[in-house]
């Protein structure tokens, strides 16, 4: 890790390449996210947005390049000048600092909403039960679902499940939150509730990287919009600039279709 960090970005990706079988998914992605910054990643499906998120929290390994989160390299550690792959424990320690919200929620089906939210703090962070429950109820309250604390995921709507999933990720007090198309699997009338919760999280100063197709949300909440196509970042800049005056032809074309 020889990269000089002038202003210490919270997340920095340099020349990241990722292959899945024969497909070159990420082709030299460079990206930095400052602390407290909200970055929305747009782009057609198959452009590598989701894969980028999965690489940032180490769910997928990258073939070349480096990804750093809060000064630590994702997936590798240096001991006595030698680079080593993370052990399971080291990888887990890294991932607990990065919250992730999935397109299909992935709530633990055999646990109630409250159990979902308190499981990580209790078993991973080692919080005492009473403290974990107190914080878990606060987290559920923040997403407006404290009344559903004893409901199982199957008893909740998609929007409610996604809000519980956000609360579950927040309960780990992560330094960075990743959202992988959080509203794509929802019925249209449920999207608003989830976006409102995400906006509240953003207002509290959380650093967020959001892969989304919600242009309106990106315009309103994002500090910066990144546009990806075919595994590359083709345009990046302030939300208003990229969305209203795209410099890149492909960005403009995509936005015309989405609007």
């Amino acid at each position, binding site marked *: 890790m020889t990269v000089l960090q002038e202003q210490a970005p919270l997340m920095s990706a340099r020349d990241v390449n990722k292959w899945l079988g024969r497909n070159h998914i990420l082709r030299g992605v460079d990206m930095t996210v400052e602390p407290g910054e909200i970055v929305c990643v747009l782009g057609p499906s198959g452009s590598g947005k989701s894969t980028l998120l999965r690489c940032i*929290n180490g769910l997928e390994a990258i073939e070349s390049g480096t990804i750093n989160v809060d000064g630590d390299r994702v997936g590798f550690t240096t001991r006595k000048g030698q680079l080593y792959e993370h052990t399971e424990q080291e990888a887990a320690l890294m*991932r607990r600092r990065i919250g992730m919200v999935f397109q299909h929620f*992935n709530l633990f089906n055999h646990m109630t909403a409250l159990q979902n939210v308190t499981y990580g703090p209790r078993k991973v962070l080692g919080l005492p039960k009473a403290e974990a429950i107190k914080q878990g109820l606060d987290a559920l309250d923040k997403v407006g679902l404290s009344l559903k604390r004893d409901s199982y995921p199957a008893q909740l709507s998609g929007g409610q499940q996604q809000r519980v999933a956000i609360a*579950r990720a927040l309960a780990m007090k992560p330094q960075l939150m990743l959202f992988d198309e959080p509203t794509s699997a929802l019925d249209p009338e449920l999207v608003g509730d989830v976006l409102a919760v995400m906006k509240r999280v953003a207002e509290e100063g959380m650093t967020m990287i959001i892969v989304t197709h919600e242009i309106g949300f990106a315009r309103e909440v994002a500090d910066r919009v990144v546009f990806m196509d075919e595994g590359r970042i083709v345009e990046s800049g302030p939300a208003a600039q990229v969305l209203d005056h795209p410099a890149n032809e492909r960005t403009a074309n995509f936005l015309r279709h989405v609007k």
Partner: protein
Amino acid sequence: MTTNNEALTKVHLATDSPLTTPQRSSDEPQRVSGEKARRRKPYGQWATAALILAIIGAFCWTQAGNEKLDWASVGQFMFHPAILKGIAVTLELAVFSMLISVVLAFGVALMCQSRNRVASAVGKLYVWFFRGVPLLVQILIWFNLAVLYPTILGTDTNELISGFTAGLCALSLAESGYMAEIIRGGIISVNKGQTEAGLSIGLTRGQALRRIVLPQTIRVIIPPTGNQFIGLLKASSLVSAIGGSDLLTQTQLIYGQNFKIVPLLIVATVWYLILVSVASVGQYFLERKFNPEGASSRFSFRKAGRP
């Protein structure tokens, strides 16, 4: 024909019962509501039922008069101490080999799913062998273990391996081959997203498997496991081939002396049916308990309900 009958019945009921008569506004034309459709008699069904009952009745009639059946002897041996002891051994065999096989099968299923290629190959080989060799052959091999290993850890093998222990070993291992496949199926049935969600809150892969995935497989595993247990109850009768002192062995011992073969086989039949019926009822309640979306869901699944 049946569907016609049902349709007619519905018309009849709808017009007959004031509860199901829909409210009609006065300007609507009168429909067939005033008429009563006569229910068509299901003569065909009656004929079939009569035929079936006649066949069963004829069978019972001829058997009731069959002196060789000797119902008095059936009654006499139904609760014979030797028979009751045999039932106890059959139950022990089934329950213990089920428990042992589940423990073994969890290990084998995890090996099969492992990213370690040697482990997964050995796991698959295990399933292939113990599921492939007929149970009776496995029982005989265990019973004749002394030929291979005259002593085990300094003890005479023939002292160690009785009919019961040979049967227990064979049943457990053979069953674990099937159970490993059932558990592996359960693990596969849990969405990959569950593991990823576990990883994302900082669990290691092993922790995610043990704490997130495995608990969710239980619900999928229970119904086939119940079937396996019922199968095991019946398969345990095979140890009679080596004198495993189970229900069938005891039955054979008795009829070997008094030659009342059929009455004693009826005793065994009745007891096996009773055991299987009890197991079926147990399976029903287990399934209900482990189905969180089922009838009594919220209250029975994880009674505590809160973390």
